[in-house]
């Protein structure tokens, strides 16, 4: 195996050459992507070589030379991985990119105000609520760019390399595409290895196993399992969904109706509630991902179940006491049904009011292209490109076992179930009702049937309006 490891200071970027060649199929023999830390990407000795990675695209990169676009995004691994690469884009295209980065709360609070007020910037932005943004006509359909030979080279862009779930994310119900996937996350099980070993237990094979395991691991000192239960739309609904879906339920059915009152959905909520009531920590009702992750990383809870992205924090010794002591696994299935962990692809799109749409498209295509994805994956970003997941740089950074578990969960996930709920124009109302229901079940103030029954009423009402 011709593997090169270059000392790169703070930024370890090693690319398994064979997989990288497969990934980019452009790089001349003998070259490897190395970046010296401290130097901006365009000042690297090999920046010319990096640029060559894009030169093969039959695209008129310089078409919008001299324009300036604004990129709007949140404090997020994607921004952190891609923004440092932007000088390369500017060198390639002559387009300046202004970066407008905010925390998630700020971003989701200020974007509706800006776009609702008719702002032409940001030109490109991360999409925090796709259904809403499409209904509100804030997003430019991307198909016209794809059909323009001067703006898109399908062979070079290599769409089959992108996960099928991500490609299905990009297709809206009207057949058009309003955004490109930029990340991939799947609901993954994290287990404290030494706690499992101490009791001679192993990863669960079914939902009932998971419950038994969590209860068995609970003690005076340590809770069995912690998952989100805070009653907000961005908290509990995401992790609950893996349970509801795996029991055969849905938040929104394929014909667009509320699925909360389905017995399968209720069974999923019931299991989620049981897990947290019987094996969860005190105060679980106010837990968001932050509390779940902290408890797990401090060894205060034996099992966690959340985004695969947390692997990078869990395996970071400066943040976590369980680095090297964590088993990443698949979400177990319920009897006789396939496991359907929840998943998520962040997407980015173009502002429908942007004055620089072609430049914005060039950026979007550049940012999601194979070379950029490979570079971003090397700093640990989970991109939606299979080739990037195969690079050793990514597997080193993300953790090979965590990467395998994440991939398995991603492949098991049902993107359509997710899309039906999260991409619904009324998604926030639906998820808000689900969040409250989870919280009520976890605190024991309602049982699953009553909680989802009430939520079902609210969702029906919201869907009628």
């Amino acid at each position, binding site marked *: 195996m011709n593997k090169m490891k270059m000392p790169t200071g703070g930024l370890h970027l090693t690319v398994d050459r064979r997989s990288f060649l497969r990934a980019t199929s452009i790089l001349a023999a003998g070259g490897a992507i190395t970046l010296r830390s401290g130097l901006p990407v365009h000042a690297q000795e090999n920046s010319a070589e990096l640029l060559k990675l894009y030169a093969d695209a039959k695209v008129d990169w310089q078409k919008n030379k001299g324009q300036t676009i604004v990129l709007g995004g949140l404090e997020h*691994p994607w921004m952190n991985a891609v923004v440092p690469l932007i000088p390369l884009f500017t060198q390639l295209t002559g387009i300046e990119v202004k970066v407008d980065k905010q925390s998630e709360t*700020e971003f989701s609070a200020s974007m509706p*105000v800006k776009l609702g007020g008719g702002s032409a910037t940001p030109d490109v932005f991360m999409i925090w609520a796709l259904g809403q943004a499409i209904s509100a006509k804030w997003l430019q359909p991307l198909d016209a760019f794809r059909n323009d030979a001067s703006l898109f080279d399908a062979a070079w862009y290599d769409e089959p390399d992108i996960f099928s779930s991500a490609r299905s994310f990009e297709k809206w119900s009207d057949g058009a595409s309003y955004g490109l996937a930029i990340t991939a996350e799947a609901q993954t099980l994290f287990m404290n290895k030494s706690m499992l070993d101490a009791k001679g237990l192993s990863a669960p094979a079914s939902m009932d196993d998971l419950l038994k395991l969590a209860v068995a691991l609970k003690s005076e000192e340590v809770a069995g399992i912690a998952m989100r239960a805070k009653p907000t739309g961005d908290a509990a609904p995401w992790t609950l969904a893996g349970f509801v879906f795996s029991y055969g339920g849905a938040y929104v059915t394929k014909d667009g109706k509320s699925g909360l009152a389905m017995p399968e959905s209720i069974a999923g909520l019931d299991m989620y509630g049981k897990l947290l009531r019987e094996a969860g920590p005190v105060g679980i009702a106010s837990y968001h991902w932050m509390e779940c992750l902290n408890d797990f990383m401090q060894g205060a809870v034996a099992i966690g179940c959340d985004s695969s992205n947390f692997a990078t924090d869990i395996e970071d010794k400066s943040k976590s006491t369980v680095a090297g002591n964590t088993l990443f696994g698949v979400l177990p299935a319920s009897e006789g049904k396939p496991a359907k962990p929840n998943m998520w692809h962040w997407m980015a799109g173009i502002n429908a009011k942007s004055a620089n749409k072609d430049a914005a498209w060039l950026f979007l295509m550049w940012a999601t292209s194979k070379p950029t994805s490979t570079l971003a994956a090397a700093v640990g970003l989970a991109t939606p490109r299979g080739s990037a997941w195969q690079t050793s740089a990514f597997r080193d950074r993300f953790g090979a076992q965590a990467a395998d578990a994440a991939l398995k969960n991603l492949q098991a996930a049902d993107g359509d179930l997710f899309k039906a709920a999260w991409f619904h124009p009324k998604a926030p109302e639906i998820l808000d009702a689900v969040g409250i229901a989870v919280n009520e079940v976890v605190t024991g103030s309602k049982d699953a049937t009553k909680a989802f029954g009430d939520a079902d009423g609210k969702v029906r009402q919201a869907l009628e309006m």
Partner: protein
Amino acid sequence: MRALRSLTPFARRLALSAFALWCMFPIYWLAMMSLKTQVDAMARRPKFLFAPILDNYLTVLSDPAIWTYFANSAIVALASTALALLIGLPAAYVLARYRFRANADYGFWILTTRMTPPVAVLIPFFVMYVKTGLIGTHAGLIVAHVAINLSIVVWLMKGFFEDLPGELEEAAAIDGATYFQAFAHICLPVVLPGIAAVAILAFLFSWNEFLFALVLGGNDVRTVPLGLYAFVGYQQVRWGELSAASIVLLVPVLLFVLIFQKQLIRGLTMGAVK
């Protein structure tokens, strides 16, 4: 009764110290957190003793962005405080000292500007600012903060002006002073301690204001609360940097408060001769 009297100073000091501890504890915890690694900061058994590190401060202080936040906040908070006083003091004075028909209604109207919940006015404000070019400018944010703080300046200063004896202006009139001279030269100096207190409040409100700074200042005029919020990222909170940065940025605020306190105390001794 005598026993109670002699107990009072002790009980009083106990209460004052307890309240001081209560005010300080979360700040102390934040400061400790800024000296910990992330693992220690979240430790299962909260750590009171640990090996302190300075990495968080080095990271934060070497980031030029933090100085930009500081400069933006300083400009906006100082200017909006000064402007709110400049505009608010005359209004407070006539509302306190002069009887005229619309007096009560005018005062109440000023108060209502603070009552409106921001959700409904954010979009109109944004549109208005885009149309006038005030969006993303220091001036725009300063003006917005003046509007937010004007009510508190007017209503608090009204109270201080009302407490002045009625003979002040009469004496001034006898000496041949104009209405404005009576205000500026006779009454203003006497209410200096009040002005200092109100200035501190207006400054703090502006320094920590979040929502309008978010929507109207945005990325071009990122103030301290916005800058610090950036440490609360997607799927991670950078505790070390958040705590270190907030402690660093607390220092200038405390300096400002201390300077005004001096003024406040000096004003007090001047006021004592009235």
